[in-house]
């Protein structure tokens, strides 16, 4: 979701500053060679052919508008260099923390950017509904068919028309833990939901007084969103992807038995005083702890597990080793049994508001495997991954990115996009968060799902 994207972006600061220095050094050497090649007839490079095919666009400007801001923007901007060297066109990158609200205003006012990087399918629908968005060239469709799973193309399709190629991705079905703590306590990473439950019980009853789970859902006005991710993960696991889709598209009401059961299942963890909130207080302290702080007690040995997306990697303090043999690492939030592997995640999409040749050429570039690998190389500090099948694992440097990559590319994995990002804004970025927060501070599951159902737009 958009807001959480920012928060993650802001949070990346700590870890990524270290990475950035690397980006600056590593990036310059590799791109200068690319620049050198381009200078001596860049368009002669065969990899440039798909983009030079759009005609001479030398000197043309392409405006990109996005919520990806410093420090993550550097890697984005660097990943465009290959295209700029190929075609001589210039990409003007504009990041704004308030992107989600502003891009709609700009589109409605008739002043949209050429390209918007949209982090939610729900917002994508709203933008297409303004009538200002244009369909991509055929090459983008071909690229998406070739490099992405069908589900991903579906998320970029509005009313049967394909508009948006996916860009990056992140995995939400992850549980962060301390490999050392697990080893000391003789605990094994669980492979089914039942094992997760018994593992939790074992920790809760071991008499050491350390709570198994810690969580935080505070995120300014977006407070509550981590609960929506929990619920989506359990919805996928308990009722399966098809029911999940029905729930997201409102084919079944929000207060139907399946979603209610999913939220109750989350409640067994998050609202159980014996399980939470390690190092942070009681159940209610989940609501007052920011999501950035939610997993930190793991480092102090005050909590065993923290369910949060892959981008949480950026929230560990500088110097924390994020690896299977390091201070913290993550495991896949297990499914009901080993035969299925539902994966909850999110990502961004490319939406164009212009069909000028330079914009179409750039859209084609962004949907290609070339870009995905360029982006991976431009992000040596880690913290970025894509579901693009053309992405090479060897270009990802951090163990957590490699873990995300392996989960995304697992043939058994059934990927589902963050549900609240696809729901209408009145639910997905308002009622769902608000009621989830009220649920943590004491509201019953029934009241919660009933109130969210009541907020669903009628038309």
């Amino acid at each position, binding site marked *: 979701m958009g807001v959480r994207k920012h928060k993650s972006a802001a949070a990346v600061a700590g870890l990524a500053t270290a990475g950035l220095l690397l980006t600056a050094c590593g990036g310059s050497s590799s791109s200068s060679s690319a620049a050198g090649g381009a200078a001596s007839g860049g368009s002669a490079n065969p990899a440039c052919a798909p983009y030079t095919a759009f005609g001479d666009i030398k000197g043309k400007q392409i405006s990109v508008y996005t919520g990806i801001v410093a420090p993550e923007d550097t890697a984005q901007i660097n990943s465009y260099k290959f295209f700029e060297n190929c075609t001589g066109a210039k990409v003007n990158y504009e990041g704004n923390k308030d992107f989600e609200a502003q891009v709609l205003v700009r589109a409605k006012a008739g002043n949209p950017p050429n390209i918007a990087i949209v982090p939610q399918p729900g917002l994508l629908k709203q933008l297409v509904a303004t009538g200002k968005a244009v369909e991509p060239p055929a090459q983008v469709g071909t690229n998406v068919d070739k490099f992405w799973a069908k589900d991903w193309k579906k998320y970029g399709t509005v009313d049967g028309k394909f508009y948006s190629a996916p860009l990056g991705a992140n995995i939400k079905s992850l549980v962060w833990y301390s490999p050392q703590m697990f080893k000391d306590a003789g605990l094994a990473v669980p492979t089914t939901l039942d094992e997760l439950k018994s593992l939790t019980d074992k920790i809760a009853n071991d008499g050491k007084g350390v709570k198994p789970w810690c969580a935080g859902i505070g995120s300014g*006005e977006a*407070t509550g969103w981590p609960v929506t991710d929990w619920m989506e993960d359990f919805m996928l696991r308990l009722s399966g992807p098809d029911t999940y889709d029905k729930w997201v598209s409102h084919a079944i009401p929000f207060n139907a038995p399946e979603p209610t059961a999913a939220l109750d299942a989350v409640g067994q963890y998050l609202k159980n005083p014996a399980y939470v909130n390690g190092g*942070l207080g*009681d159940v209610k302290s989940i*609501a*007052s702890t920011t999501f950035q702080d939610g997993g930190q007690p793991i480092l102090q040995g005050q909590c065993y597990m923290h369910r949060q997306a892959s981008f949480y990697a950026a929230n560990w303090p500088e110097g924390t080793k994020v690896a299977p043999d390091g201070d913290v690492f993550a495991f896949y939030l297990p499914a009901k049994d080993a035969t299925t592997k539902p994966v909850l995640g999110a990502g961004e999409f490319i939406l164009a508001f212009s069909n000028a040749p330079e914009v179409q050429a750039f859209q084609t570039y962004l949907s290609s495997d070339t870009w995905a690998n360029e982006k991976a190389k431009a992000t040596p500090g880690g913290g970025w991954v894509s579901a693009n099948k053309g992405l090479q694992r060897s270009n990802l440097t951090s163990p957590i990115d490699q873990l995300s990559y392996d989960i995304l590319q697992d043939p058994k994995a059934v990927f589902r996009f963050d549900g609240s990002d696809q729901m209408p*804004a009145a639910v997905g970025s*308002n009622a769902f968060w608000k009621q989830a927060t009220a649920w943590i501070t004491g509201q019953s599951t029934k009241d919660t799902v009933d109130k969210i159902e009541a907020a669903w737009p009628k038309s």
Partner: protein
Amino acid sequence: MSYVDKFGQMFFAIGLFVVIVALVLLAVGRIGGFRGDRIVGRTFVAPTLIMLAIGLIYPAVLTIFQSFKDASGNSFVGLANFKFIFTDSDELITLRNTAIWTLLTPFVATFIGLIYAVLIDRARIESYAKALIFLPMAISFVGASVIWKFVYDYRPPGAHQIGLLNQILVWLGFAPQQWLLNDPLNTLFLIVVMIWIQSGFAMTLLSAAIKNIPEDMIEAARLDGVYGIRMFRYITIPSIRPTLVVVLTTISITTLKVFDIVRTMTGGSFNTSVIANDFYSQSFRAGNQGLGAALAVLLFVLVIPIVVYNVRQMRASA
């Protein structure tokens, strides 16, 4: 856009403005006589009127229209949005909070400001004492909210407290509290922030008014044997009444519009939302333009009587 471009555009705009004003002045300067004066007057008022029409009246009328429309602003739904505001349980809590804010803040802030102004009047350390309470005025609402968020911060019992209030509790042997979680007390803790900021404003204006009370009036009262609390009641208060009204109404309007404090400290969670905050989240986050506009209109309607009263009082005292 580069900085050179931006500054270029800015200077171009300023230049254009100067040229247009010069042309207008030149044009009206050529018209003389009594008729000319009226034309000159109207020409000078015109830009203000045009800008008010574009920047204030047009959006206001548009918002009123939108408040009768549905979420996407496409079809009319009559009074449905207003009905929702006065029936939905969450919206009713928003209204309740707004009422608590507007009833408490102006009076408490003005009271504290008044007492302080009277107590330090002509004291030796007056200027320092004034600066002390005036300083929070210089802090933005968001800044003040961040500061107070730290004051209220909660850590579990036994952990190292980083919130001032909870640390004091721990020192006194009590358990730390979740100040911002428990409704409706949490609204009061938010109001404290507003009072902290606005008391300085009240104190400054009231102190100036107190100094303006004619010396001979006070002397005459003293000769009649009026001192202490009666002096305050029968001389000070009536003399500074116009200023008191201005201070009260100004703080009331600021309080009705309160947004930054709620948004920064709780984001409207835990039943702390107020009309302005709800207006923002409905309009720009939930994509419910109609309801957002209706909340804005409601806020507008609530402010009107206070403004009218304020203007009347100013006229009466002029």
